[in-house]
């Protein structure tokens, strides 16, 4: 059998014509899909006169790092030190991402594999909740957060994020696929349910929680916290960056650099997670 080195080696039933068609399709759509990435990188490198050029051009002619210099100047002028914004972002993003992945998968495992009263109702509630418009629940949400006394703290962003519906649903769907025998044998060895969860369930659904981490990281990183955080010292980097970017024409260069950084962080995280998904699967695979 003839195999292209770019394609996976262990696959069967693959025709050369089929492979050609796939490469062709991917090429056409790939260019269209890559456009925003191309634009963001090019804009960040454009000198001011090219940014204001009309009609706009996609590609930069005289690349420069001036925009990033402008951005750092603007950062240093802010009265809350930038390291503080960075710290806030790390706390909120890590808290919301790690917290959600752990709590959602911890709840998804019993919902998927245990038998107890009310589990189907609870699961249906989670799925249905994802269909209710977030705009109108904001006000009751705000009232509950004030009532809990966590307004104007990191918790006001982290705790609600831990209980999003999507993560639980995603984790449950993947855990559903695990064969019961896997858990049974661990239980026969005397493992408690928490141990089964940490040593059997989680390692076997690594692609699922790495993917969930990507979604949640993106969500948390994009949060400006402006609804719940009043103190400037608590606000995340996203807020400070958007303030700079909103500086109008005078900040057009810095603004292009901001757009680049806002996209670059989640992309970096995405690449780390994705390559991990691939590694685990090529070395171990799924064993039954």
């Amino acid at each position, binding site marked *: 059998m003839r195999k292209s080195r*770019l*394609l996976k080696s262990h696959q*069967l*039933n*693959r*025709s050369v014509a089929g492979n050609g068609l796939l490469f062709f399709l991917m090429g056409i759509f*790939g260019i269209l*899909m890559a456009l*925003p*990435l191309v*634009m963001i990188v090019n804009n960040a490198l454009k000198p001011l006169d090219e940014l204001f050029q*009309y*009609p706009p051009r996609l590609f930069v002619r005289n690349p420069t790092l001036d925009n990033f210099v402008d951005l750092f100047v603007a950062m240093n002028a802010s009265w809350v030190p930038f390291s503080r914004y960075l710290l806030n972002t790390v706390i909120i993003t890590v808290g919301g991402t790690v917290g959600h992945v752990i*709590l959602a998968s*911890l*709840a998804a*495992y*019993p919902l998927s594999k*245990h038998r*107890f*009263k009310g589990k189907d109702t609870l699961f249906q*509630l*989670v*799925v*249905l*909740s*994802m*269909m*209710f*418009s977030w*705009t*109108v*629940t904001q*006000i*009751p949400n705000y009232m*509950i957060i004030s009532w809990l006394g966590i307004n104007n703290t990191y918790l006001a962003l982290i*705790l609600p994020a831990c*209980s999003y*519906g999507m993560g*639980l*649903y995603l984790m449950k769907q*993947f855990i*559903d*696929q695990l064969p019961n025998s896997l858990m049974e044998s661990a239980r026969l060895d005397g493992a*408690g349910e928490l141990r089964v*969860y940490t040593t059997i369930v989680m390692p076997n*659904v690594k*692609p*699922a929680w*790495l993917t969930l981490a990507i*979604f949640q990281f993106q969500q948390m990183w994009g949060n400006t916290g402006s609804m719940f955080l009043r103190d400037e010292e608590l606000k995340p980097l996203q807020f400070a960056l958007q303030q700079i970017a909103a500086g109008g024409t005078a900040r057009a260069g810095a603004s292009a650099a901001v757009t680049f950084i806002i*996209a670059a962080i*989640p*992309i970096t995280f*995405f690449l780390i997670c*994705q390559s991990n*998904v*691939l590694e685990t699967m090529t070395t171990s*695979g*799924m064993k039954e």
Partner: protein
Amino acid sequence: MGCGKEKGIRLSPQLKRSMPSYLMIAPYFILFTLFTILPVVASIVLSFTDFNMLEWPEFVGWTNYIRLLVNDDLFVVALKNTLIFAVITGPVSYLMCLLFAWIINEFSGKLRAFLTLIFYAPSICGNAFMIWQIILTGDRYGFLNGVLLKWDIINEAIIWMKTEKYVMPMLIVVQLWLSLGTGFLSFIAGLQTVDKSMYEAGVLDGIKNRWQELWYITLPAMKPQLMFGAVMQITQSFAIADISIQLAGNPSVNYAGSTVVTHLLDYGTVRFEMGYASAIATILFLLMVGTNKVVQKVLRRVGE
């Protein structure tokens, strides 16, 4: 398990056995009740009130719903647009997610990760549809106008997002382009978990090409992800609002791009009629729940 003697304690043997399960789900569901169930219930209650966010809500019964379904002509337009969006972008985008995830899964190593990034890029670059503003600019410097003028397909520049008949088709194209998000990545992850030995077994069973393999082995094996993707698709395609507001404006020309959610945002964040906005949200919710019921039924039959 000798709890038969202590009848004073309420824990039945069944409940006692389920204790670890309840303890494991407790942290999530306590937060979920606080931050999701309570706000949703509160919103549904508010939909029966007149609430301007300053004064205490006043109970008005079905008034909001009657006004919405009988007297609000703009809601009818918004609902029609939303249904068109949902019926077209929902299934098409779902199939695109599946198709591209499946094709990308055929590649190996670094190239695979790179392709995943490229196709996911519109979802990860916060303001990705800015690129469409350049493409759809209404003068002759707009990219699309430029190309069409050059090829003599049109004689003068078209102001795409201000011309009623082009608004919906353009928004549908942009939405499709933007829609390889949550569903797509979960399919990518789902394809990883398909047991490789099933493919080898499939060859012995007489599977001849990749299409048969897809239908008889891959899709049935990733049914849980297919269901997840469908729910995500429904929540996305019924809630389209952002791209319409960004590209066509809110209100858009003659409401050509208005959707249920732009209508909701208008009442909730501009006019502060929270009771009415909540009624819109509840109707939208029921619409999605109904659609989901039908879609899940269809998906159960995959691979049969």
